């Protein structure tokens, strides 16, 4: 079991580090997607479509082995973070975009009419409101991300699923996988409850 728990810690580390990168990158992609400059909009749209149209596992393999071929040797952890970030940022960018567009245009107009530039208005008026609205969907994405870190086992990163499979090989039975399942559930179930509560808490003002 301690062997699996160490794997779970790796899983959580991978998910947390990736999530931090995803939020930052996803927000940037969302802002490009709604930019007034057409080339930015187009580039963001292509990125989102291409990434969402491919399996994550393929992206992980391409990034780890592909970059390796090009002489950019990344550690398995770094490759995992990079692949998860590139993939999930495409989804979360769409969530951010929907959140931003859901804010009434009068808010931007009021901010601009006070002399704030576009970026100041975004930063102080639009984003604080939009982010509140997207917390529930982003939390669900985080839970999905946490489970999808298991796909990084394809490049043999020693996270909990990978360790479970190794144990399964040495012990020649499937009980380690039950342990793996429990590892995921002790994290995901409390998270799901937390999301439900936040949803209720956030909607109380509406």
């Amino acid at each position, binding site marked *: 079991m301690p062997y699996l728990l160490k794997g779970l810690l790796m899983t959580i580390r991978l998910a947390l580090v990736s999530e931090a990168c995803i939020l930052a990158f996803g927000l940037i992609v969302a802002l490009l997607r709604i930019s007034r400059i057409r080339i930015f909009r187009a580039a963001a749209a292509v990125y989102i479509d291409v990434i969402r149209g491919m399996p994550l596992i393929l992206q992980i393999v391409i990034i780890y082995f592909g970059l390796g071929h090009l002489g950019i040797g990344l550690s398995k952890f770094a490759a995992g973070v990079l692949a998860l970030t590139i993939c999930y940022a495409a989804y979360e960018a769409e969530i951010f975009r929907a959140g931003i567009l859901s804010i009434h245009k009068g808010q931007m107009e009021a901010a601009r*009419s006070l002399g704030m*530039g576009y970026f100041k208005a975004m930063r102080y008026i639009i984003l604080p409101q939009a982010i*509140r609205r997207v917390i529930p969907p982003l939390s669900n994405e985080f839970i999905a991300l946490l489970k999808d870190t298991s796909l990084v086992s394809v490049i043999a990163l020693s996270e909990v699923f990978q360790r479970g499979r190794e144990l399964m090989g040495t012990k020649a039975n499937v009980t380690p996988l039950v342990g793996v399942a429990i590892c995921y559930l002790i994290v995901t179930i409390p998270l799901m409850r937390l999301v439900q509560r936040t949803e209720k808490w956030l909607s109380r003002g509406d």
Partner: protein
Amino acid sequence: MIKIVGLRKKFGHHEVLKDIDLEVKPSEVLVVVGPSGSGKSTLLRCINGLEHATEGQIFIEGTDITDSKVDINQIRQKVGMVFQSFNLFPHLTALRNITLAPIKVKKMDPDEASEKALKLLEKVGLKDKANAYPAHLSGGQQQRVAIARALAMDPDVMLFDEVTSALDPELVKEVLDTMKDLAREGMTMIVVTHEMGFAKEVGDRLIFMDDGEIVEEGLPETVFTRPKHPRTKEFFSKILSHI
């Protein structure tokens, strides 16, 4: 103070403003009336650059804001705007709604900004609501905070876009009273409104717009009682018969 020359605004093929010429002097209260869709709001929105003029020039204190080299954010600090739908920032308290732009745009010291905001709240009769969020204020209170928010930037002219139209009838007076005080202090104001009593009492001059044109212009009292143009006659006969 404000001079508009040959202003045209098109949305696609639809011409909303057709060759508008207008001048507003310092401390003047100009009232703009007309049926909906006549271009009144678009005119206001052109004056602070929320809409771009298709043709013509708009001079604010001598600066042509239709010139693309002009920093519109600088101009907007001089032109306060109050909206029909208030547009207070719901995630900020009344006080923060007022202090945000002075702090972030004018780089005012936060304590100084708060002090000023409290004075403005007192002026609009809402000093005790400084820490309330917009959701906990009535429409009339929200609109008065919105007026205070615009005043915090020390504008030279204030634009009011049907600011009482979204209010319950019993809340209209408190907002109009605030605007009257402002006019009395000598603020230059352009007021799009359907409140004819206010227009008559506070307005120095009235323009009647219809179909993107200024149809008639004069003292509010004169235009109400002796409209010259048939379209003005028709409009006032429809609304004044109910007063």
